[in-house]
């Protein structure tokens, strides 16, 4: 996203300050038509974020806007889409997770001749009839319809969109027959068919896409990795990898990213699968049954390596050390690695930036190895380890122990630190207050008190802080002076805090989003927007965002901060309200996403991703 200059930003903020300020510029038609596309896009984005956008206001943007991102907006319906249909220069439209989008609301899209990118992911009401509307958008280059209601017949229709270079059909019942009909799409570079009905037989057809560089076959019954000539990225999560065409192994020389999380290997594939994969820079073999990690030695270009939840242990660390020179991210959480393994590793990974050792047996000594031998670390996860915060001195001055976390000070780029661990005490964590570079810190321990909270207020750059399950008191929270940069405070599980204490804190610091059992969802902060597509966290972020989007457009009389009436009133008041005439003022049911729907949604995401 382009960074606006300071005065442009001031103008955008002023223009979107209130509904009244909008009224004062919305009739300047000539200016609006002359707006350069990136400014028009930014203005539309700001209006949406400030909840000032409504269908008829869209009209003024129809000549200037090129990109629209309505991700997760529950208000987008046929009326909005009717206006969107008039956007002559629109090239990119994101309607993913818009629950009210269905086949008929898509009809106006047929007139958008300049449309190149369309995202309908998880619009579950879109079916084959909706795809028929899309057929007339001949210039479409990128199309996302994962987890929609489209079936085999609808997928076949896509073959007429000859300009497609990206096609996301994740979670749809794509068949072998579909794949062969889609071979007409010779420009295709990106094909996502996770969870489809494609078999080995159909997968052979994938070879006929001459330009394919990305392929996702996760959750399919494909057992044989197709050797697509120019493939750079292959996902086969949860697949069973049985056989390999050894004759073609040279073909995969361009492969850079290989994601095989949860895949099953047979005895012979385990040895052969990774030969000739030396070009790989990104490898994810987490949650696999791999026993032998010797293949890592050949992957000399590795930058990202995920070995979490595997049989990886100290005896295999040397293979990682062999290729450590280029490594930037390493995840070995939930493995058998111990401090001895970290010792072997240290000194061999000079460029390592992200390291996760959570749920392992590493202890305080490993902190010393990390802080002295891994100078570039900027994110470190040490949750649920054997770290106690102190190193027992062996010398005669028995019983004297040295705080171990102080050593982290030498990691000058450390920004993110996770130390969620039940036995860490205030004393052990006190050196953290000197880590002034920290931006994200998460702690979770029942031994923590107000002392730690107050101690951490001296961290000048902290953006998010989690102190979960701690024995924080209401008075302690009241006295807490959060750093100016703080935006998120996670206090879940702090059972001593009262409702008033949380509410008081929210009131004093409205720019901080508080997470606690007593905290209300705030709608003004939208930090989840920048998450990449289809990452697992997104689904959760999305649901929480959706909850905050339930603002009824119709009844401005109802205070906006109270979204769910059950939050606004307690039970007795609610019962009393039932018969009052004003209950008719409450928003119509259609504006809500019901709780079961949200739950179902997140469950689906959890299962799939």
């Amino acid at each position, binding site marked *: 996203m382009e960074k606006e*200059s300071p*005065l442009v930003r*001031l*103008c955008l903020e002023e223009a979107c300050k209130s509904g009244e*300020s909008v009224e*004062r510029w919305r009739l300047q038609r000539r*200016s*609006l038509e002359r707006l350069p596309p990136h400014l028009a896009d930014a203005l539309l984005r700001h209006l949406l974020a400030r909840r000032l956008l409504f269908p008829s206001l869209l009209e003024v943007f129809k000549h200037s806007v090129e990109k629209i991102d309505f991700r997760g907006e529950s208000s987008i319906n046929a009326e909005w889409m009717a206006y969107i249909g008039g956007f002559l220069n629109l090239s990119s439209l994101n309607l993913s997770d818009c629950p009210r989008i269905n086949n008929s609301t898509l009809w106006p899209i047929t007139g958008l001749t300049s449309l190149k990118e369309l995202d309908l992911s998880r619009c579950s009401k879109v079916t084959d009839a909706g795809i028929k509307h899309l057929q007339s958008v001949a210039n479409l280059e990128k199309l996302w319809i994962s987890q929609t209601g489209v079936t085999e017949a609808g997928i076949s229709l896509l073959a007429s969109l000859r300009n497609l270079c990206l096609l996301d059909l994740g979670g749809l019942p794509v068949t072998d027959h579909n794949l062969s009909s889609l071979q007409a799409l010779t420009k295709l570079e990106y094909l996502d068919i996770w969870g489809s009905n494609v078999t080995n037989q159909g997968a052979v057809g994938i070879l006929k896409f001459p330009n394919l560089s990305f392929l996702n076959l996760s959750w399919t019954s494909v057992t044989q990795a197709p050797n697509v000539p120019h493939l750079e990225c292959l996902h086969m999560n949860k697949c069973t990898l049985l056989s390999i065409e050894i004759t073609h192994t040279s073909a995969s020389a361009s492969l850079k990213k290989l994601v095989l999380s949860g895949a099953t290997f047979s005895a012979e594939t385990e040895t052969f699968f990774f030969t000739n994969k030396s070009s790989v820079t990104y490898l994810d073999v987490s949650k696999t049954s791999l026993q032998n990690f010797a293949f890592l030695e050949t992957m000399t270009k590795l930058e990202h390596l995920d070995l979490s939840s595997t049989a990886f242990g100290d005896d295999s660390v040397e293979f990682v050390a062999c290729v450590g020179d280029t490594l930037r991210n390493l995840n070995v959480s939930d493995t058998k690695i111990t401090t001895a393994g970290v010792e072997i590793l240290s000194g061999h990974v000079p460029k390592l930036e992200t390291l996760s050792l959570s749920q392992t047996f590493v202890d305080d000594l490993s902190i010393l190895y990390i802080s002295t031998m891994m100078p570039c670390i900027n994110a470190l996860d040490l949750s649920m380890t054997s770290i106690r915060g102190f190193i027992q001195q062996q010398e005669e001055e028995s019983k004297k122990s040295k705080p171990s976390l102080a050593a982290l000070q030498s990691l000058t780029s450390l920004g993110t630190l996770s130390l969620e661990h039940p036995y860490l005490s205030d004393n052990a964590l006190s050196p953290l207050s000197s880590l002034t570079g920290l931006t994200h810190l998460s702690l979770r321990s029942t031994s923590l008190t107000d002392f730690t909270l107050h101690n951490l207020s001296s961290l000048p750059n902290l953006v998010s802080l989690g102190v979960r399950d701690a024995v924080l008191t209401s008075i302690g929270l009241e006295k807490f002076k959060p750093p100016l940069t703080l935006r998120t405070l996670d206090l879940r599980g702090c059972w001593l805090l009262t409702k008033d204490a949380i509410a008081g804190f929210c009131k004093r610091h409205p720019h901080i989003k508080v997470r606690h059992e007593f905290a209300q969802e705030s709608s003004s902060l939208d930090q989840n927007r920048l998450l990449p597509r289809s990452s697992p966290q997104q689904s959760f972020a999305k649901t929480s965002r959706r909850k905050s989007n339930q603002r009824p457009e119709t009844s401005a009389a109802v205070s906006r901060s109270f979204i769910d009436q059950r939050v606004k009133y307690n039970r007795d008041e609610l019962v009393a309200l039932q018969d009052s005439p004003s209950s008719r003022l409450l928003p119509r049911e259609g504006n809500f996403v019901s709780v079961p729907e949200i739950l179902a949604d997140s469950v689906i995401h959890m299962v799939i991703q």
Partner: protein
Amino acid sequence: MRETVKLISMEGFEFVIDREAAMVSQTIRSMLTSPGGFSESKDGVVTFPDISTTILEKICQYFYWSLQYSRGKETEFYIEPELTLELMMAANYLHT
């Protein structure tokens, strides 16, 4: 004497401001400092045929406000909502 530059609006109105203030705009800065012999860098006069007098005046105010702000005087810069669109376009052009 302090060095000044002259900015001329669409309607021909002339604004004489400190060179230092005008340099807040990256576009004007490169016009005034480029060695390639822009006539602007010789005479210190820049004409903006697309920017109206009202907007150019506001832009000049912003230049001075921005200088003060960078020196630690944290006041607010008020923009009338009806000027936001045109001002935004001018700011975009001037990279300020």
